[in-house]
Each structure stands twice: as structure tokens, then as C-alpha cells.
């Protein structure tokens, strides 16, 4: 039994939340308390397992680890193949970390149809982890699409006023992208005769089945559009503000924290290694779009009257950084991008939780309704401050490490990119600090706010967990970066073969020199 678990740790990790869903399905509808605890316990167990996988993951080994493979569908040959590398292992940890927080954040705010809510939330976790561990294109696509259904219900049933519109928009946007991706997957199968990620990569890189230039361009675009919509890269971002704002807190946390990362994960996992020439050819355009996203997201955030919208648009800017880092094609850019994916998940997830807490108390998110909260809610304000600073990239906190590496990578790729991205950092400071100032400082402007209660124990647990992670990742990023090294080097080797960017790569990142 134990040996089986050892050999199938990824399967267990992926389907443990789904087991929770099934268990909840058999619980009585009115046993809300039991249902919440079941959801929490299952998500925490998943988190422990994810930590286990993360710790056991060997940084010295290139390629996939914890690989499981068994035949699934005979015709065409589709295998159930799971595995993690340095890229996915950190994203799994992020997913498993955010889900219990999402469960806790919904503890009291979800009162109707509790059973379905937590069932969907756990099913969603299975879908998300599945996307990150699947190493068969078909299996990946299954998780990628199936995951939309629980998210659709989370937004559409438990969301705010315009929830139906937001939910339908979310699902349709994503599906247009994935329809194109499915054509791409089928085409690749037609060329290589397999859906296996590693086999395809091997065949493409050894030149056994070379793709023509035109085919590579079209395939790159088919995959890229699917991922760019998910990221979302400017100008594919219009679904994001709607979905994030209308979703319930847990939905926003998961959307911002994990779902957006699927896009950037897909870029790194599939687009770059499969289509290196096309990636290089499109890199300038994509970098410019990413920079537009950074600046546009920041400027739009600045003028939002609604806290949740502000946080939502800040995601566009943050993900712009990630894409910029990826398409810098050097080790600091890509590692910074992966690191920033996790950072954004933690910080923005936490911001959504914080905004949700405020909404639970006052049933409004308009900035002008607040002011001077720091004196009324000292604990809450402190936590909000730390998370805000982490989001804007203050040194010693997690955001700094990621942004610094990305900007460094961007500078190496092209000085203009780096300079413009740095402007984005300044703008982030402006909109976040200005928001903080208006909400928390000054006199109490609204009498209704005087009687607001400060954080209770449940909220403190959530926030302490977040702050611990923020500090840890800000001070000691090595455990994460170390695990990425080999995988990122592999991607770079594939992209950089004769690329102009790779030649520029100086002694990687600063932390490496001191080691």
C-alpha cells in the first residue's frame, strides 16, 4: 500500500481533492459545518502531499521526476502520463497552498448551497493540479477543459451582480483559445504519431520530424492564442476584469492565483520548447504586447474606484511582467518569471482575500466608502500593508525577487524593454500606495466604518500563513530557484540553439555568484 502510494504520489496528489468532492456529494445538504471541514481537511492533506513532492524533488536531476505512465486509450495511443519538473513543481505547491486558503476565505461568506460550492472548489483543484502534472497532450487538454466547468459554476452561481455575464464570457473566451489549441494538438499528433510530451519534444529536437517554418508559425499561434487568452496578455484581457470582479472571493483567488498561471505555464511548457524558431520570431511582438500590458494594466488600475477591480487590473500588469521575462530567453528572465508566477499567486490571492474580508463587513468595495481604516482595524491594516508592499515589489518581500530577475533578464534581452518594465514597477507603487492611503490613512470619513470588527482567528490564520510565505520567499528564494535551474536550462537550450538572446547571457543571476 505504502509502496503504491510512493510510486503514484502524483496521481494521489491530483485526485485526492476529487475524492473530497465525492465524499461531499454523499453528505447531507444541511450539514454545512461538516462539509466545510471535509473540504478543509482534503485541501490541507493535498497541501501536505504537495510539500512532500516539493521536498523530494531533486534539483540535481534534469528532466521529469515522479513519472507515472500507463496506457489509457488504445487508438490513438494515449497514455496516462504524469510527471513534474522544476517548473510545474512550484506551481503545484502554489495551487495546493491557495486552495485551503480559498476554503477558509469562504468559510462564512458562502451560505447558500454550501455543498455544491465546496464540491466544485475541490474538483477545480484536481483540474488545476492535473494541468500542471499531465505530460500527455491529450490528458493535458482534458484537464485544461474540464477545469472550466467548476470555475464556471463558481462564478455563475456564487458571484456578484453580473455573474452570469462574467461566467459565460470567461468560458467562451477560454474555449475559443482551446479550440485552436486542439487543432494544433491534432496536427502535432499527425506529424509525430504520439501525444506524449517527452516523445514529441525528442522527435522535434532531434529533427526526426522537422516542422516546416510555416507549420511552426501556425502551430505556435494556435497554442499561443490559447495561452495568451488565459494569461491574459493584452489585448486578450477583456474577460479578466469581469470574471475576477464578479467571482466570489475564493473564485477570484483561484482565478488570479492559479488559472492565469496556466497560460504562462503553457507558454513555457509547450510554445517555447516545441516551436523555438517561431518563438524567437514572435518574441519582439510579444514583448511589446507584454509591456503594453504592464503599463496599461497599471494605468487602468490607478483610476479604478472599486478595490476589487483595481486588484484585477493589477493582474494584467503583473502577468505582463511574467510574459516579458519568459520571452527574454535568458535564465534570469525565465526564472524570474516562474518565481513571479508564484509571487503573484500568493500576493494577489491575498489581496483578493483581504478585499473579500472588507466586503463581508461592509458589502461594498468602493474606495470612496472607506478612509482611515487603520485606526479602526489595526491588525487588518497591517496585514494589508505587508501584502500591498509584497505586491509592489519591496525588497525583502517575495515580489522583489521576481520582478528584479525579470527586469534584469529584460535588460539583457533589450535595454528598452528593461527600462519600460521598470517604469511599470514605479506605476505599481503609485496605484497600490495611493489606494492604501485612501482606504487606510487619514480621518475616518464614513461613520458606518467605525463599528467594524477587526480580524477574527480564522482570518488571522489565513493572513499569517500568507505573510509567512511572503517573507520566506522574499528572504530565501533558493529552494525554489534551485529546483528550476535544470528545467529552465533545458528550455533555454531548446530555444537558444542559435538564438541571438542566448549569446548575451552573462553569468546567470546574482545569487549564483555567491553560491
Amino acid at each position, binding site marked *: 500500500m505504502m509502496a503504491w502510494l510512493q510510486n503514484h504520489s502524483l496521481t494521489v496528489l491530483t485526485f485526492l481533492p476529487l475524492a473530497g468532492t465525492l465524499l461531499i456529494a454523499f453528505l447531507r445538504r444541511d450539514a454545512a459545518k461538516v462539509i466545510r471541514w471535509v473540504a478543509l481537511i482534503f485541501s490541507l492533506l493535498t497541501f501536505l502531499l504537495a510539500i512532500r513532492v516539493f521536498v523530494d524533488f531533486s534539483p540535481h536531476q534534469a528532466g521529469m521526476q515522479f513519472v507515472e505512465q500507463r496506457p489509457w*486509450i*488504445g*487508438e*490513438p495511443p494515449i497514455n496516462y502520463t504524469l510527471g513534474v519538473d522544476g517548473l510545474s513543481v512550484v506551481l503545484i505547491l502554489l495551487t495546493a497552498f491557495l486552495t485551503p486558503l480559498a476554503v477558509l476565505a469562504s468559510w462564512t461568506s458562502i451560505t447558500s448551497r454550501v455543498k*455544491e460550492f465546496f464540491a466544485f472548489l475541490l474538483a477545480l483543484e484536481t483540474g488545476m493540479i492535473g494541468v500542471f502534472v499531465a505530460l500527455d497532450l491529450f490528458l493535458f*487538454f*482534458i484537464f485544461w*477543459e*474540464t477545469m*472550466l*466547468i467548476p470555475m*464556471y*459554476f463558481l462564478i*455563475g*452561481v456564487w458571484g456578484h451582480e453580473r*455573474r*452570469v455575464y462574467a*461566467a*459565460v464570457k470567461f*468560458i*467562451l473566451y477560454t*474555449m*475559443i483559445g482551446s*479550440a*485552436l489549441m*486542439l*487543432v494544433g494538438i*491534432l*496536427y502535432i*499528433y*499527425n506529424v509525430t504519431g504520439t501525444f506524449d510530451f517527452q516523445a514529441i519534444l525528442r522527435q522535434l529536437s532531434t529533427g526526426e520530424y522537422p516542422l516546416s517554418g510555416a507549420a511552426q508559425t501556425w502551430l505556435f499561434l494556435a497554442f499561443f492564442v490559447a495561452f495568451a487568452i488565459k494569461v491574459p496578455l493584452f489585448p486578450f484581457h477583456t474577460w479578466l476584469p469581469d470574471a475576477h470582479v464578479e467571482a466570489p472571493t475564493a473564485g477570484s483567488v483561484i482565478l488570479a492565483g492559479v488559472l492565469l498561471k496556466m497560460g504562462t505555464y503553457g507558454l513555457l511548457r509547450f510554445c517555447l520548447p516545441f516551436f523555438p524558431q517561431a518563438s524567437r520570431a514572435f518574441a519582439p511582438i510579444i514583448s511589446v504586447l507584454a509591456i503594453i500590458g504592464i503599463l496599461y494594466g497599471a494605468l487602468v488600475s490607478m483610476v479604478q474606484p472599486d478595490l476589487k477591480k483595481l486588484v484585477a487590473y493589477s493582474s494584467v500588469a503583473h502577468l505582463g511582467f511574467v510574459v516579458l521575462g519568459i520571452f527574454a530567453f535568458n535564465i534570469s528572465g525565465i526564472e524570474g518569471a516562474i518565481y513571479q508566477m508564484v509571487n503573484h499567486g500568493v500576493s494577489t490571492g491575498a489581496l483578493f482575500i483581504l478585499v473579500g474580508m472588507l466586503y463581508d463587513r461592509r458589502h461594498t468595495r468602493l474606495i470612496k466608502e472607506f478612509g482611515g481604516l487603520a485606526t479602526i482595524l489595526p491588525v487588518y491594516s497591517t496585514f494589508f500593508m505587508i501584502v500591498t508592499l509584497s505586491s509592489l515589489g519591496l525588497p525583502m518581500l517575495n515580489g522583489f525577487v521576481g520582478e528584479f530577475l525579470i527586469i534584469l533578464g529584460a535588460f539583457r534581452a533589450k535595454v528598452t524593454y528593461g527600462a519600460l518594465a521598470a517604469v511599470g514597477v514605479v506605476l505599481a507603487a503609485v496605484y497600490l500606495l495611493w489606494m492604501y492611503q485612501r482606504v487606510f490613512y487619514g480621518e475616518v470619513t464614513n461613520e458606518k466604518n467605525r463599528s467594524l470588527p477587526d480580524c477574527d482567528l480564522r482570518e488571522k490564520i489565513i493572513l499569517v500563513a500568507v505573510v509567512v510565505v511572503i517573507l520566506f520567499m522574499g528572504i530565501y528564494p533558493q529552494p525554489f530557484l534551485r529546483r528550476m535551474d535544470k528545467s529552465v536550462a533545458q528550455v533555454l537550450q531548446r530555444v537558444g540553439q542559435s538564438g541571438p538572446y542566448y549569446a548575451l547571457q552573462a553569468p546567470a543571476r546574482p545569487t549564483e555568484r555567491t553560491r
Partner: protein
Amino acid sequence: MITFQPADLIRILPEVILSAFAVLVMVLEPFIPAGRKGFLAWTSLVGVITAGVGVLETSLLPGKERILAFGGMVAADHFALYFTALFLLVAGLTVLGSMNYLERDRINHGEFYALVLLATVGMCFMAASTDLMMIFLGLEVSSISTYVLAGFKRHEVQSNEASLKYFLLGSFATAFFLYGIAFVYGLTGTTNLLALSERLARPSQWPLLAHVALILMFVGLAFKVSTVPFQIWTPDVYQGAPAPVTAFLSVGPKAAAFAVLLRIFLGGMASAGNLTFWVIWLSAILTMSLGNLAALAQSNAKRMLAYSSIAHAGYVLVGIAAGGPEGTSAVLFYLLAYALMNVGAFVMIAHLAGTGERSTNIEDYTGLAFQRPGIAACLSVFLLALAGFPTTAGFLGKFYLFRAAVHSHLIGLTIIALLNSVVSVYYYLHLVVAMYMRQGKTEASTAAVPWPLGAALAVSVAGIFYLGLYPNHFLVLARFASNPLP
């Protein structure tokens, strides 16, 4: 000359059994008192199951893959048996789904079940025939039974209108088909598909009129599968007919006509070349796109599903355009998946619509999930499967169709088909939105699901997930069944 051999009978054993039970039901009908017509339903269900055993018996017959009977008029090959099994499944689900419906709407007459069985016999013959004349006879048997079924609610104008429309346009279509057969016979002196494939082996042997004949036959079948522009009758008939009959109509005759299309266009007359391909290619695009776009605008659930079934015919045509063993087996697999999803959706609607089918508007289902979470979840499974979400049969069905299309380098067609299925997500979700995301008191019937219907639903849902997650067995069957075709 055709000589009758007793051994031929065993090759059409399922059809024989079904016909016998159909006669039995009609003979018993006068002796069963009004309140107990359910007995006839069970009788016909026993007939369906016995015929299923007959399929197994026939499939175990020794011999070559193509077992011809009655002097080459009928083949008991795997292709025929696959379709026979499919039709039996549809008939069985329809009988289970209509028992309580007929009772509720006070039209519980025994001949309903006899007609379902006879229509099934006709469909089986359509799939099994290797002679154009036999195909025509099968088409007529199934058509005439279904015309009556569509108008089974004698006292309702809508049902009468449906029946009349179906009859008029249907007979028009069969006339086209017959006309095509006449041309073929005049040109080649035979109606046997095997003989035809020898006589028209190369495109150079094709006289111009043979192309005309082919188009005429295509038009006739296009009416039956309701491809654009021959789909005009579909929404009205599907809406007007009693909902369980619609379930039957939208799957059975459609699949049978597809079987004939495959037999003629990829079998006997496959050498027609480019013309056939482009006709199918074009009608695939038109059918998918118009079906989906029209479905977007519907406010009635039955009508929406009618347009959706038009769109699904378009997806199947993509597989036929792809051709080859990949295309054919994908079509066979898809038709099975489609049968489960569509019959499930329609019999569910039949139940929810309540007495006299009053509540078939999408609005009527507002807030259903609050009152009947189980029913809402079940209907959602059918809808999401129709929309093609993974882990359901609908996804894998489409996956195989599109894989075959990409394999045949029909990339453009595949992209159009996939974008179409994104459009379809919108209208399927429309119903899901009403059930789950809008507050209100539902107008739909909240009566408990009677157990025969429950059984039909359970079979459909289980089948949808089984095919969606572990399709290996049925893939092998579909592959095997597509072997007799080139």
C-alpha cells in the same frame, strides 16, 4: 435469381424478432384493458432485448466478414450489426422514456410501441442492405412508422402539423432517393452496391448522369439527416412531436440515413471522386454553422435541441468528408455517443415539460436546480456532453471526428467545426444558466422521476461517462464495424 435459403433467416434474426414482437404487441393490444397498457411497453422491451440477443447470435456466425444473405440483398456484416445494436439501444431507451409520458398525457395506446419496433426494423434494414432497392424499402418502413409517431398526439394541432410536415417533406425526399436509384439502374443495369462498385470502379467509368443520380440520392438522404438546406422541417417536427418521439426521431432515422450514406458514398459508389467530397464538405460547413447559429436564437428547449441536432449532423459529415477507416469509425463512434446524449436530453425534457408538454421554454427551467438538484445535474450532463466537454462521450466523439479530418488534411474544416462547437457551448449553457444561476420558482414539472425513465437516464449518463473515460471497447467495435467498407 434469388434463392431463399433457411440459413438466410438467421442472418436477419434481430429484424425477424423485432417484427414478431411488433405483431405480437398489435395482436395483444385489444385484449389489454385501458389502464394496463404498460404491459405492452414491457412486451416490446422484451422484444428489444431478445433482438439484442439475436445480434449477439448473428455476430457469432462463422464465415467471412461480409455475410451476404438473400442473394446479396442484405449483409449481416459488422457494420450492420453495429447499427442494429445502436438502433436497439435507442428503441429501448425510447420505450423506457415514453411509458410514463404516454400515461401522463393520456395517449397510452399499444400501437405506439409496435410503431417504435417497426421503425426500428426499417432502420435495421437500411443499415444492413447492400442493395439500393432494399435500402429504399427499409427507408419507407421506418419513415411511415415515424410519420405516425410524430402525430401521435392526435388531439393536438402542433402534433398533427408535425406529422403532416414530416410526411409531406419526407415523401418528397424519398421520391428523390427513388429517382436516383432509377437513374443508377438505367445506367448500370443493377441496384446492387457490390456490383455497382465493380461497374463504377474508376472515375473514368462514370457517366455524367451517374453523378446526377448520386446527387439525387444525397438529397434524399440529406432530408433524413436534416442537413442544410434540407433541414427546414426539422425544428417544427421536433417541436410538435411528443418529446419521447423526438428523442427517437433525432437519433434513430438520422443514424440509419448516415449508415446508408456511408454504404453508398464510401462503399458502393466511393469512386465518384471529388464531386462527392465537395458536396459533403460544403454541406458539413453549412449544416454546422446554420444549425448552431439558429440554435443561439431559440427560447424553446425542444427547438433549441432540434437546431443542435442539425449542427451535430454537420459534425458527422466532417467525419464522412474525412473518409477512410479513421473517418468511418469516428462516425460510428460519434453516432453512439450522440444517441446517448440526445435521447437523454429529450426524454429529460419530456419529463420536465409536465402534462401536455406545457413547459418547454428555457425560461420555465429557471431555478430548477434549487428544487430538483438531481434532475438539473442530470440534464446538465447531457447538455455539457452535447457541448463536447471532456470526460464525456461528446468530447471523445468529436475528438475522433476531428482527428480523422486532420488526418485527411482538412485543417480548415476542422477549425470551422471547432469554432462551431464553441458557439454551441453558448446555447447549451443558456439552459444551465437558467437552471443554476437564476433565482425563481421553476415552471417545469417537479414530479419525481418514475423508475423506468430513471433507468433510461441512468443508462445514458453511465454510457456518456464510460465512453468518455474508457472508450477502448467501443472504439474497437467501431473500428471493426467500419472494416466492410473500403
